[in-house]
């Protein structure tokens, strides 16, 4: 029968407990890793997005603040331009007080307010008092651009205020705001330039308080990309710090990802109205910070705890499932080793318990069957032993040999020779070199030799006849050996003995369909049904024929039934004072070719 084996050739063979533990653990770990990575990614993305949205909001607010600041400046210039300068003839009227008033109200973010004529002459200024010697405004952009574009307002780049003289220990950074204004002198109107120096400190106040979370910052650039304000302004362009301002100036409003000096950053760009300035919000890559070594160890710790807990649970589950199976396996191994009395483990889950009960039942049945088999073998062995024993039963031999001695001593050598020859033949056929079956012919010859011996030595006088059905090939049909002799012995002892010379014993064999039937018939006194029943009663005890050849009629019946089956055996018919007929039924079984020769050799 072909054996089917399954299994993964790449994995080592593991017991069921380790397999369950390993596969459950791997599954759990994979689930943890997948869920953890997904959750982390999702959380990081959501966190990033939230940070970007918040920072965008902050930048928008800052844009509005700067815009408001710019608008305030523009409104101030409008007040000066339309409310003060336009309607004043500067040759005859002073506007210094108005300049002072406006400056005083806005001095937190204004450095100077000044008015120039179209030719570059300083007409009014506050709080500075004079221009620097040698300073020529007419070749400066802040002066020429408003005159070229009178309807526009102009913002210069951030620069050090170099127009007016101050004390030696003071300088200030300003953004020059300038616009063309109508100046009237001596009744004549012409364009002049109103200049407001916006202090860097005032601008810084608007911007500096904004912080973008997670080490982010904002800075301000002008339309050409030059930095107006930066939290690291003084360190820009040194070896320590650089900014990507020129690239940022090319972006339109929006959110961008960039990599600058090896760091990933999110850049938010917003344009400030009127000025062309841009507010740039820079936020380094957002994520759960793993820079701290302790954070990394904590991640490993959390992962290890989960692995440990899952391992305990998996180990418990695998043990709960597999320990009953292992106990059952041990029980089966014990039974397999021959101990049918071993206790079978019954426990665990429903299926295992049921399996245990089934195995226990099976053990019981096997044990019973084996006991029956043992008993049967024992009985058979006993029967065979009895036959064997009979074959060498000394009483028959002694008696016969004594008869021979007597015959010899009586000088009846001829008879003695006949008796010895008959005895030799009797034993030779009976032994038959250990075979259980002989031919029908041999069996008849065996009983005939017996009868010969009994006639010669026994005081009982009787007649006998042995015949076989015509055309029955008695030399080609098997018969269990030594089945007629015990019956004949019985018939002589209980039948012929009481006939006083008139006893007749008939032995015949015939075929009855697929059976062979021996018939031993005597005209003796017969026997009762009780006796018949007793004779045929199956027994496990060894029945020894007393004084005779040893094997009883019971033995014959039992041997036939054991050898051929229950359908075969003895049938006894008896009638008191009439006689007894014993029929022996065995199956018709032809001799195998080749067996004959072997039998002949044994006989020699």
């Amino acid at each position, binding site marked *: 029968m072909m054996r089917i084996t399954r299994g993964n050739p790449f994995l080592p063979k593991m017991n069921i*407990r380790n397999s369950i533990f390993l596969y459950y653990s791997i599954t759990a770990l994979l689930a943890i890793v997948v869920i953890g990575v997904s959750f982390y990614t999702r959380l990081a993305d959501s966190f990033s997005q939230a940070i970007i949205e918040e920072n965008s909001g902050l930048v928008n607010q800052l844009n509005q603040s700067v815009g408001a600041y710019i608008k305030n400046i523009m409104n101030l210039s409008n007040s000066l331009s339309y409310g003060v300068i336009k309607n004043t003839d500067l040759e005859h009227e002073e506007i210094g007080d108005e300049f002072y008033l406006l400056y005083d109200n806005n001095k937190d973010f204004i450095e100077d307010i000044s008015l120039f004529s179209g030719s570059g002459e300083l007409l009014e200024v506050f709080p500075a008092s004079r221009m*620097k*010697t*040698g300073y020529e405004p007419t070749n400066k952009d802040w002066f020429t651009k408003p005159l070229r574009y009178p309807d526009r307002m102009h913002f210069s*780049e*951030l*620069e*050090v205020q*170099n127009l007016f003289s101050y004390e*030696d*220990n*003071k*300088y200030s*950074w300003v953004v020059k705001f300038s616009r063309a204004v109508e100046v009237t002198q001596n009744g004549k109107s012409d364009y002049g330039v109103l200049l407001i120096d916006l202090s*860097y*400190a005032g601008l810084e106040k608007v911007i500096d308080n904004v912080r973008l979370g997670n080490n982010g910052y904002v800075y301000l650039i002008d339309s050409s990309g*030059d930095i107006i*304000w930066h939290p690291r*302004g*003084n*360190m*820009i*362009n*040194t*070896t*320590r710090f650089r900014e990507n301002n020129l690239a940022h100036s090319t972006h339109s409003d929006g959110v961008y990802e960039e990599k600058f000096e090896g760091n990933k950053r999110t850049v938010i760009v917003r344009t400030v109205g009127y000025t062309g300035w841009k507010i740039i919000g820079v936020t380094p890559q957002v994520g759960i910070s793993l820079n*701290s*070594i*302790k*954070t990394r*160890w*904590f991640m*490993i*710790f959390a992962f*290890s*705890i989960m692995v*440990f807990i899952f*391992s*305990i649970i998996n*180990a*418990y589950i*695998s*043990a*709960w499932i597999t*320990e009953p199976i292992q106990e059952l396996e041990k029980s089966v191994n014990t039974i397999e080793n021959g101990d049918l009395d071993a206790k079978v483990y019954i426990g665990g889950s429903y299926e295992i318990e049921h399996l245990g009960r089934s195995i226990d039942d099976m053990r019981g049945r096997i044990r019973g069957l084996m006991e029956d088999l043992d008993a049967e073998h024992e009985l058979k062995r006993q029967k065979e032993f009895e036959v064997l024993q009979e074959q060498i039963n000394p009483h028959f031999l002694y008696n016969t040999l004594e008869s021979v001695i007597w015959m010899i001593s009586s000088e009846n050598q001829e008879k003695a020779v006949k008796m010895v020859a008959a005895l030799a033949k009797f034993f030779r056929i009976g032994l038959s070199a250990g075979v259980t079956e002989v031919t029908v012919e041999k069996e008849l010859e065996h009983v005939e030799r017996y009868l010969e011996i009994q006639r010669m030595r026994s005081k009982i006088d009787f007649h006998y006849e042995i015949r076989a059905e015509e055309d029955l090939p008695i030399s080609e049909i098997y018969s269990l050996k030594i089945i007629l002799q015990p019956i004949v012995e019985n018939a002589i002892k209980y039948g012929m003995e009481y006939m006083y010379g008139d006893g007749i014993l008939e032995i015949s064999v015939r075929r009855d369909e697929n059976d062979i039937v021996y018939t031993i018939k005597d005209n003796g006194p017969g026997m009762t049904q009780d006796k018949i029943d007793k004779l045929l009663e199956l027994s496990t005890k060894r029945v020894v024929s007393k004084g005779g050849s040893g094997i009883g009629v019971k033995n014959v019946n039992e041997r036939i039934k054991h050898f051929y089956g229950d359908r075969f055996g003895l049938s006894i018919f008896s009638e008191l004072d009439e006689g007894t007929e014993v029929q022996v039924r065995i199956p018709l079984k032809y001799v195998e070719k080749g067996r004959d020769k072997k039998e002949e050799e044994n006989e020699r």
Partner: protein
Amino acid sequence: MIGGRMLKNSWFIWVISIFVIALLFLLSSTDLIIKEDQVTIYQIATILDETSDANIPNFRKGMERAATELKVDMRVIPLFEYGNMEDQKKKMHEEVANGVAAMILNPVDAPNNLDYLLEGLESPRASMPIAVYDNMAPHYSYVDIGIDYSRAGERLGAAIGIEKPQSKTILFFYSGSKEGEYNEVLYDSVKSKLESLNHDTDLFYGKPENNYDFRVKISKLAEEYETKPVIVCLDRLSLDMTAKMLDSLPSYKELIGGLYGTGNSLYLLNKLADGTIDGLIVWNEYAAGYLAVESVVEQLKFPGLKRDEILDSYYIRSNDLDNRNFMRILFPLN
């Protein structure tokens, strides 16, 4: 017991696992094994070769910015008298005795006297981080925040050669606590450049108390030299005194062919703007102050880490003051 055999057979694995988890807990959630960086506020003293830090405002601003960012308690200690080496040494040792963690030093009469200033510092203070500013020569033990005066001298010499070809003589002014102690690197560099352009050179010392010596010298220039000499001041003090003297006596401007020097103070830049000074060698003093503080803090955190910085120098004229790049270097944003 179900599972009991499981535990019994592999008990040692579970025990080891528990130990590992306990160890991981100690590593990740306690300070027993890994200690988080504590925020340490370092005390740093700065002792300059100046009587007031107003003379070096940009350097001061740079130091203050770095002190804010790096959480440093900064003390700036001026000298009672310019160029007083003993005073500087005494102040230095006092600060060390007060337990200052590190020091920034602009040595008097550098580079000759650094070892003298440092001698006598007791161990372990002898290994205290020190950043030396403008020492004119690097020291093997300390961080050097310096200017490449050799290169600066070449630039200055070349500029003078181009701008003042008619001046035969170049007169070097210097001042300080001792005559004979001046910026030799700068002097040699400018001198060799100018002599290669066939200029004669001369050297003059003026005492630091006032500008009398320089005034007298200038007043006699016409007698001593065939052509109006160009004055090159080798240090900020001499340039300062000379410029102030020319401010107060404008007629003296006619006696000289031009005035050049080194220095970043606002006064000198104003003098450059108004034409009193013809050209200046400048550098980013703000960055110098920032880097000086940063370097000593780095040494405190990582002993043995020594990162010298040589600052770029620039030659500027008055029209360069409108250049925004120079504005950022010379006029740090407040």
